[in-house]
């Protein structure tokens, strides 16, 4: 899996309440929810984002609520990958389960500037800042998690498991 696009830069502790405010959670409809992605900290995000763009953030991205709506709206907006210094654990789990590519890379998260063109090879974990001509290597996932991602999410991997039993 690969993605290429513009970087949107965010600080430490981006919480699920700003990714998708709870006032909109009276619907499970991803497309409707995605209209409000990030609006409380970046009201122009939804208008500016294009398919393949990447989010670059600090520590503890996705902290707070367990709402799966958070990775879901980011994915629905077209974001190809979230790169952060670290992820809050429920967000990390949810992103894998729903198939939103995420990578932990401290150096890339520090150095990539907003608006830079970034290419990500999700399989190898290579992140390239094309604007600055610099590459970074992110921690790869353990094989067990890679198998969930390759199946297209947790439930699909469970169904595959059932068929192989």
């Amino acid at each position, binding site marked *: 899996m690969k993605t290429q696009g513009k970087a949107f830069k965010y600080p430490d502790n981006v919480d699920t309440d700003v990714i998708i405010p709870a006032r909109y959670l009276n619907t499970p409809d991803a497309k409707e929810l995605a209209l409000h992605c990030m609006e409380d900290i970046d009201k122009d995000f939804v208008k500016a984002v294009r398919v393949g763009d990447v989010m670059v953030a600090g520590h503890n991205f996705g902290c707070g609520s367990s709402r799966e709506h958070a990775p879901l709206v980011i994915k629905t907006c077209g974001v190809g990958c979230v790169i952060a210094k670290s992820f*809050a654990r429920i967000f990390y789990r949810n992103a894998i389960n729903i198939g939103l590519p995420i990578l932990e890379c401290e150096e890339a998260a520090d150095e990539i500037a907003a608006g830079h063109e970034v290419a990500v090879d999700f399989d190898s974990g290579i992140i390239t800042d094309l604007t600055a001509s610099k590459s970074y290597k992110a921690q790869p996932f353990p094989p067990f998690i890679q198998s969930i991602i390759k199946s297209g999410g947790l*439930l699909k991997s469970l169904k595959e498991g059932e068929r192989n039993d």
Partner: protein
Amino acid sequence: MGMTMTQKILAAHAGLDRVEAGQLINAKLDVVLGNDITTPVAVNEFKKAGFDKVFDKDRVAIVLDHFVPNKDIKAAEQSKTCREFACAHCVSHFYDVGKMGIEHALLPEQGVVTAGDCIIGADSHTCTYGALGAFSTGVGSTDMAAGMATGMAWFKVPSAIKFNLTGKLPPNCSGKDVILTIIGMIGVDGALYKSMEFTGDGVASLSMDDRLCICNMAIEAGAKNGIFPVDEKTVAYMNGRCEREPVVYEADADAVYERVINIDLSSIVPTVACPHLPENTHPARELGHIRIDQVVIGSCTNGRMEDMEAAYKILRGKTVADGVRCIIIPGTMQILRECVERGYYTAFIDAGAVVSTPTCGPCLGGYMGILAAGERCVATTNRNFVGRMGHVDSEVYLASPHTAAASALTGYITEYKEV
């Protein structure tokens, strides 16, 4: 090398003699939980994947608590989805309006969760049940769907931080001040991916409500779970209440911890987390004159009987300050009923507060106490992120029921002093 209490519970549920931090395991689940926001997404995933039955109708719990009684048409549709799913699968622990409570106040109260359990819930505050000596953690809707279908979940075995508690809390402090102090100390990602294991001589002095409150906010330090040892108080609480036999696990004497933090409970002071992170803590008395517009006493963190009792003792015979809206939300119908029986309800009304039926409502900015731009609230809830309780330019200060009630009377953030 020994195992922590959490690791022992996980090993037992994975059918293994031992596990170690970092190991990936597949564990059997005792309870799978969801609410009216997360369950509809799980139901959709469950159906889409082609599952047609739940693994055990007695081990799935669905609680309508975030937006009920339904706040609008869309919320009503979500409740309906939950109701129809629960009915179709004969889910025995389905809690609708009239029976419901805030999930993490309700499940321990009703004895649905017990010591030694392995529990997942599609709500981040599922970590609350560690107070009973269970492993319990928040997950998303897809995990809930998978858990409902298979009765299993994968986990990465966590390492742990040990909190060695000594001494006894001052009378104007509660579990909330303990957990806010800890989060202030280690930060909102201070326990990321880890267990917070509470132990030491000081545990005995903490009530079950204190312990439930402390474990509830483990997620606010990034933790996977919080957990207390099972002692006489836990056993007395569970006795005659839990529907399944409790199983008691203890950490090995040589268990490995990443870090040990000593907390002297007698040194805890009334603590407030200022906007916009739970780690931004200060002693209430050092905050100066911060004027407030609203007080909320309730939530899965502080909507239990002792919280209502603290509010009653402070508010009875007094009047809420002019310009302050004081909203009190008992966590379950049983707690609400007890508030009526003990005369708290009348005392709250006489003080100028309003009392609602159980709901998560204002805590997550859903309804029942939304803030306008520039408004400030002292809340016994668990998060004070930007826009959490309403407008992005509003502010939430997290505090104990003592501090919240005392502040309601003065109109500014106030440390409660026993008289």
